[in-house]
Every structure is written in C-alpha cells, then in structure tokens.
C-alpha cells in the first residue's frame, strides 16, 4: 500500500471511531439533524479549508483568510445597506476583489521571493484593517434574497436540514478534488510542494502556479465570507478571528503534509467534520469546558505531525536502502 495514503486513512478511522463513541453515549448524535448541522456549521470553514489545502500542498501558507472572511461579510453588509444593488452583483464584485487580493499576495511571494508566512501575515492585517475601516459595528443584513437562501434547505428524513450553504461546501469539495487530482494545475501544485527547483526542472510554470494558488485561496475565502454572511445575516469586523488556524488544523488533520507535496482534498473535509464533531459532543455533554475542543484538536494535530514525520523517515530509509541495494 502507498504509505502516503496512511494519514488519510488514519483520519477516516478516527472520524468513524469518534462518531461511534459519540453515538453510543448520545444516540441522538446519529440523526440527520446532527449531520445537517455538521455540514451547515462547517460550511464556511470547509470552503476556506479547500483553498488552504492547495496552498499547503504547494508548500505555502495563507494566514490572511480569516480576515478576508470578516472583510467579505462587512463589505457585503455595507454594500447592501448603502446601495440598492442586488446581492448577486455585490458577490461578483467581492469575489473579484478577494481573488485579486490573493493573486497580488501570490505575485509578491513569487517576484520578491518572500516567505508566504510574512506576505500573508501582512495580508491578514490589511484585510482586517479594511474591515474595521468599513465599519466597527456589527451590521445586520436584511434582504429578501437572504431570507430566501436561509429558507432554502432540503428537509431530510428525521427533520435534518441540508442547507444551501452546506451543499455549497460539498460542491466546493467536489470541485477541489477534481482540480487537485485530475488537472494539470493540480499536478503542478503537487510538484511545487515537492520543491521549487525540481518543479522548475520538470517544466512547471512556477510563477503562474503560485499566483493562481493564492488567487484560488482568496476566491474561496471570499466565497466563505459570503457563506458566513448567510450564516449570521450580518457583517462584523471582529468575526472569524483565528479561522485561518482552524483551516490549517483541518488540512493537517485531514492528512496533508504540512511541508507540502502530499495530501488529499477529501481528507480536509473529514478534518472539518472531526472538528465539528468534537464541538457537538461537548455541547451534547454540556458539562465539559468548551476549551476542550482546542485541547483535543491540539492533541490530534500533534499526533498527525508525528505520524507524518515517521512516514517520511520510513520512505526516506526505503529509498536509501534501494540506492544502497
């Protein structure tokens, strides 16, 4: 078996075992309501985590996404409050802005040969600052289109709701899986994660790919911001602080190598679901401190990093043994 599949399989096993434990303790956990909630509540995190998966696969990092989500929410809320424009053109304009924002960061990373950490950290402050400039208050969104989207759900048997935003996340994951594993762009992303020099030797257009990766992350952060605005019907500049770190955690728990070059978009979905599951369990229990969510995620992250390191060492040893033989 391909050892690269191991982290992904470990994620799936952890998710299934965790769900069974939850179900044994609280039978109501295995209901369409909870499954619907997991998808709806995880929607904004899942969408942004798809973008993060591409960034991490390429060996980079994008710290700006949490702020971009908050900016998107405030931007949409302010536009809808101050102008009579329909939400859909506002969304198009917003996605153009966030995509350009991501592309600009990618360009700086490539042209100036700067570490992505620093460039996207600057982007994080910039986007959060812009959100504050637009408004420091939480702005409610009241538009018939928003009411319509919020009532647009498929009532599953057992009263669970598959909402439009939950379905959007699933669609983004399907698109992400196809893009990563079935296209030339996806192959380039993996190659870039294996090392810039080797990628260049393989004929990967490094600059173009870098710009596209961060543009994609910006686009999905914008989309996630729109989803978040549906989720809360408001734009608030203080919202989604630290979501970039949750997204990184979901990607790593999902079995993607933090140094890049190996991983699965589908694993990220499971990573997001595991995080949602922990939170749901803590709410169902009702006596545990909610900070246990962070502790368990921290422990899982550590376990996965150790697992990945061990796998890397094993493959490296095998390779050297082959050379020696």
């Amino acid at each position, binding site marked *: 078996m391909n050892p690269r599949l191991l982290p992904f399989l470990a994620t799936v096993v952890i998710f299934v075992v965790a769900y069974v434990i939850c179900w044994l303790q609280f039978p109501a956990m295995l209901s369409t309501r909870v499954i619907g909630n997991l998808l709806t509540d995880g929607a904004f995190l899942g969408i942004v985590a798809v973008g993060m998966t591409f960034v991490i696969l390429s060996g980079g990092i994008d710290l700006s996404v949490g702020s971009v989500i908050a900016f998107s929410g405030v931007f949409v809320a302010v536009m809808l409050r101050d102008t009579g424009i329909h939400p859909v053109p506002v969304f198009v304009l917003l996605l153009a802005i966030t995509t350009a924002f991501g592309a600009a960061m990618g360009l700086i990373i490539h042209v100036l040969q700067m570490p992505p950490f620093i460039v996207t950290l600057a982007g994080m402050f910039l986007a959060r600052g812009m959100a504050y400039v637009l408004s420091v208050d939480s702005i409610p969104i009241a538009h018939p289109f928003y009411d319509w989207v919020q009532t647009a759900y498929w009532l599953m048997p057992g009263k669970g709701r598959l909402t439009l935003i939950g379905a959007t996340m699933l669609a983004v994951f399907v698109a992400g899986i196809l893009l990563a594993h079935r296209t030339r762009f996806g192959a380039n992303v993996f190659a870039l994660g294996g090392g810039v020099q080797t990628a260049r030797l393989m004929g990967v257009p490094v600059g173009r790919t870098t710009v596209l990766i961060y543009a994609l992350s910006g686009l999905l952060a914008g989309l996630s911001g729109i989803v978040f605005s549906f*989720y*809360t019907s408001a734009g608030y500049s203080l919202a989604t*602080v630290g979501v970039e770190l949750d997204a990184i955690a979901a990607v790593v728990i999902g079995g993607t190598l933090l140094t890049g070059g190996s991983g699965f978009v589908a694993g990220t979905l499971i990573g997001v679901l595991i995080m*949602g599951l922990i939170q749901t369990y803590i*709410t*169902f229990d*009702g006596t545990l401190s909610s900070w246990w969510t962070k502790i368990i995620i921290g422990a899982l992250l550590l376990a996965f990093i150790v697992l990945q390191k061990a796998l890397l060492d094993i493959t490296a040893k095998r390779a050297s043994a082959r050379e020696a033989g």
Partner: protein
Amino acid sequence: MIAKTLLGAGLLASMTLLSSAALAQTVGFSQIGSESGWRAAETTVTRQEAEKRGIDLKFADAQQKQENQIKAIRSFVAQGVDAILLAPVVATGWDAVLQEAKEAEIPVILLDRMVDSDKDLYLTAVGSDLVHEGEVAGKWLVDEVGDRECNVVELQGTTGSSPAIDRKKGFEQAIADASNIKIVRSQTGDFTRAKGKEVMESFLKAEGGDTICALYAHNDDMAVGAIQAIKEAGLKPGSDILVVSIDAVPDIFQAMAAGEANATVELTPNMAGPAFDALAKYQADGTEPPKFIQTESKLYTQADDPMKVYEEKKSQGY
C-alpha cells in the same frame, strides 16, 4: 436464583432511574464566555439555580464568538432539549437559528442582552433595567442627604455605551425634584478602576475637596478607584464624600465594610432564576410571560452586613 433476583432488581432500578430522567428537564445554556467577573458569576448562579430545580443544564461557552453560539443552539435543537437560554454576544444575526428552534417547538429565553430579531422568535428576555438602576442610586442619595445642599460629581461609563447613557439618565430623573442636589461635574472614567481614580483626582483639584458632597459612579470599579483618590487627598470617603455606585461586585462590599463606600445597586447575576420560573409556568399551563422580565435592582448599604455579602459574592466566581 439470587443472581436472577439481583438482575431483576437492577433492571427495575435502572428503569425507574430512566423514567425519572425522562421527567427531568434538560435546558441548554449558550453563554457568551467568561470575559468579566460578573459573567462568571452569572454562569455559577445559573448552574446553582438549575440544580435547585433539578434541571439538567447543558452549558456551552462560546468564547466570545457568535458562530459558536449558533452551533451550540443547533446542537441543543438536535439533542431535543426542553428549553434554551441564550446570552447573545451581538444583537444581530439570530433570525435563522431562532426560527429553527421555534419550528422544533423549543422555547428560547434571552438572558441579560437583547437581540434584533422578531419578538415571536423568543419566549421572553430577562434583564436589568439600566435606567431603573440609576434611579435607585439617585433615590438613595435624595433620602440620605435630606435638605442639605449637595454637590455631586459623576463618573460616567464608557462614552456612548448604553449603561453609561441609561444609568446617567435614571440618576438625573431621581434627583430632578431635589433642588438641593446638583451634579457639578460629570466625566467618563471608562468603567475602569485606574481611570476612575485619575478623573476623581482632577475633580478634587478642580472643585476643591470640601465642596463635593457625594460621588456617583456608573460602576463599582470606578468607585473603588475614586475612593483611593479621595483618601490620597486627605479626605474620608464614605463620610466627607458619600460614595454610591452600581453593580455590587465583591470589592465594593469590602469598601462598605471599611466605611469607605455608602451604597451600591446590584446588577444581579441571577438572570436564570426568573427565566426558569417563567419557563415552568409556560410549560405547566401555557402562560405566556411578558416579553421582558425585569430583574430586581437591589440596593445595598452599610447596614446590610457587607462582609457577609462579600463572602457570598466571592464564592460565585467574580
């Protein structure tokens, strides 16, 4: 044989346990977080009140994030709790999730803060009337000074915040008819101890300590800071300058016990008690409570055994 009997007894016992568990109420409580001593006390008191009534309380701390509160409410609905208590972190964005709870026929009661949603979406809101708090403080001062001329200095809360606006308004209403009481200076102390001390120092310099008869602070923290300033100016807080404030945090009771503060108006952390009572009535015979239940704004003075109250309050986790 014995084993069988035991097994039977065990089964029976577990069945009675199960049925009593089915009767017991389960209530979910989505709390903002534990950003202040008062909020921590609210959590403690809510737990105590639930325990008193035999309610199984499911507690979810949102760590100041609205998305966590929305998730918690959805989980409560999925779990099929009997009612939900919500202390909302912001006023906006609750329509969808409250609608979901309503469709599942789970009553939601708001604690301490309001939401912008339609009133049909929640059963009732329990909270304190901020204007009334100011009134109680003002009324105390009117009764205390009698006919004496009294110049009051006021330490306001954070400029523009609703407690600052409303507590000022209530106090002014209460002293409106007493021509002998005048507010001579009023400035913001930002609800903090350090700022309260600083502003009081400037009041004392500007007015001269002898002409000030009373201090009204919008919260206890500022009053505690101001007491320090008064002492440093060589005056006796509590007798040379009367001190009245609002909130009833433990430290002000210590000052009252030492004779350095005179009165405080309690912002009670017990929002859950009235909420549970309203809920019980609603579930018993469908009595709809009023949409706003005002909690008592109790006045504490030096006559109320401040040390004992201090000990009580300390144990609530302030």
